């Protein structure tokens, strides 16, 4: 009786499995986690206008995503939060030529917990003893951390802040640490700061000339299984509709001539 039931379950499972593989046409998108909300929304629209197509997302820090692609992960579209990671892939000939385009721009900001009463209004305040812990993305893999390091170095504060730094694996984790009150301040993008309502508030924005522009290049990965759909998705991000959605989430339009 049991054996018969198990057999029946196995048959049904096999059937469902085969059906799933037959109808799936997934387009896999590895994207910097800071564009998660905007890209997810545009992805829904893309799937709606391309019946039978499913989008699979892989969110993370651009550095980790880059390493995954280098290790052969089956990705169709890569959206990075900095040119650095895209350059690395281009050097290794891992991008489909001619498909690299910048889709948006962002700004760095320093946030503190929503209920924080610690006075932080300028970069110099971070050195004060009332600021005990500061989170930045791990500069080795997280663009937000790389921009933060660049900015703090330009301001002559990086070395002095070392003992207070806590590293996050991606910018959303940095945001989370601030929202949870584990740290007194954190470096994230302006687009992240708005996703938490009153959970976090902006303390100040580092001067834009202390770090290179935050640009988001997107490209089709070499060897993509869905190159046409991948290119179509990037076109959507660049279209008027795509730019409107990105703008709604706080992103700026790509600077002219950016790579």
């Amino acid at each position: 009786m049991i054996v018969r039931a198990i057999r029946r379950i196995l048959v049904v499972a096999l059937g469902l499995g085969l059906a799933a593989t037959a109808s799936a046409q997934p387009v896999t998108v590895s994207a910097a986690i800071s564009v998660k909300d905007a890209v997810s929304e545009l992805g829904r629209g893309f799937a709606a206008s391309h019946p039978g197509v499913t989008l699979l997302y892989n969110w993370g820090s651009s550095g980790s995503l880059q390493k995954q692609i280098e290790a052969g992960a089956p990705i169709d579209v890569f959206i990075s939060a900095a040119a650095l990671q895209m350059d690395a892939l281009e050097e290794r000939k891992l991008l489909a030529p001619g498909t690299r385009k910048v889709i948006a721009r962002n700004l760095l900001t320093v946030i503190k917990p929503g209920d924080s009463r610690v006075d932080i209004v300028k970069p110099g305040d971070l050195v004060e003893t009332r600021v005990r812990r500061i989170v930045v993305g791990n500069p080795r893999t997280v663009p937000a951390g790389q921009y933060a390091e660049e900015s703090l170095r330009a301001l002559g504060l990086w070395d002095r802040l070392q003992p207070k730094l806590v590293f996050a694996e991606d910018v959303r984790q940095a945001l989370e640490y601030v929202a949870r009150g584990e740290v007194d301040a954190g470096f994230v993008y302006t687009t992240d700061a708005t996703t938490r309502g009153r959970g976090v508030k902006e303390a100040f924005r580092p001067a834009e000339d202390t770090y290179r522009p935050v640009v988001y290049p997107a490209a089709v990965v070499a060897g993509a299984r869905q190159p046409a759909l991948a290119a179509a998705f990037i076109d959507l991000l660049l279209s008027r509709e795509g730019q409107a959605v990105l703008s709604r989430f706080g992103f700026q339009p790509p600077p002219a001539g950016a790579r």
Partner: protein
Amino acid sequence: MSPDSISALRLSLQVAVAATALNALVGIPIAYALARRPFWGRSLVDLLVTLPLVLPPTVVGYYLIVLLGRRGVLGAPLYQLTGFTVAFTWYAAVVAATVMALPLLVRTVRAAIESVDRDLERAAYTLGRSELRTALEVTLPLARNGILAGLVLAFARALGEFGATLMLAGNIPGRTQTVPLSIYTAVQTGESAEALGLVAVLTALSCLVLIAANRLGARAA
């Protein structure tokens, strides 16, 4: 080996030793109570002590954050009183390692204690020894090899702890980046040589530890 890797090794050993010491202090009495003294709530204690063995490390990490984060159940009063938070310090790594290794210690020691001939303990009682002295002078010495095996296993588990550590202590080179976290980061950043070195050291260490545990376990039987 880079200075970061060397500090990761030093930190890992520090954390594992501290965690094992804590586990010995807390775990041996618990194991004795579970083995020898039926008490109300015994099954609950047994369950709680075994849970970290079965739960995914990230679940344990979650509970630890709820308890010891800056706004945690215990962490908030601690922060109000002392301005100190456990999270993101090496103490957090010790706590995570201790909790994850505790079940291994308790189960091994409990089995060792249960295998001690009760007649010997009864003989000590009839000779007028209190329970505490019997435990310290008769039971535990007889269970010595099993206890050592438990400590060695707990040490190995503490050395290899990753998930709960990453969540509560973070991955800060030089402060909380233990060897498993260091390997994770090295692989993430494509530094295969660095990763390989650490993997080799940890594998060798774990093998030594397991051999020691087996030898002690065999002698206890």
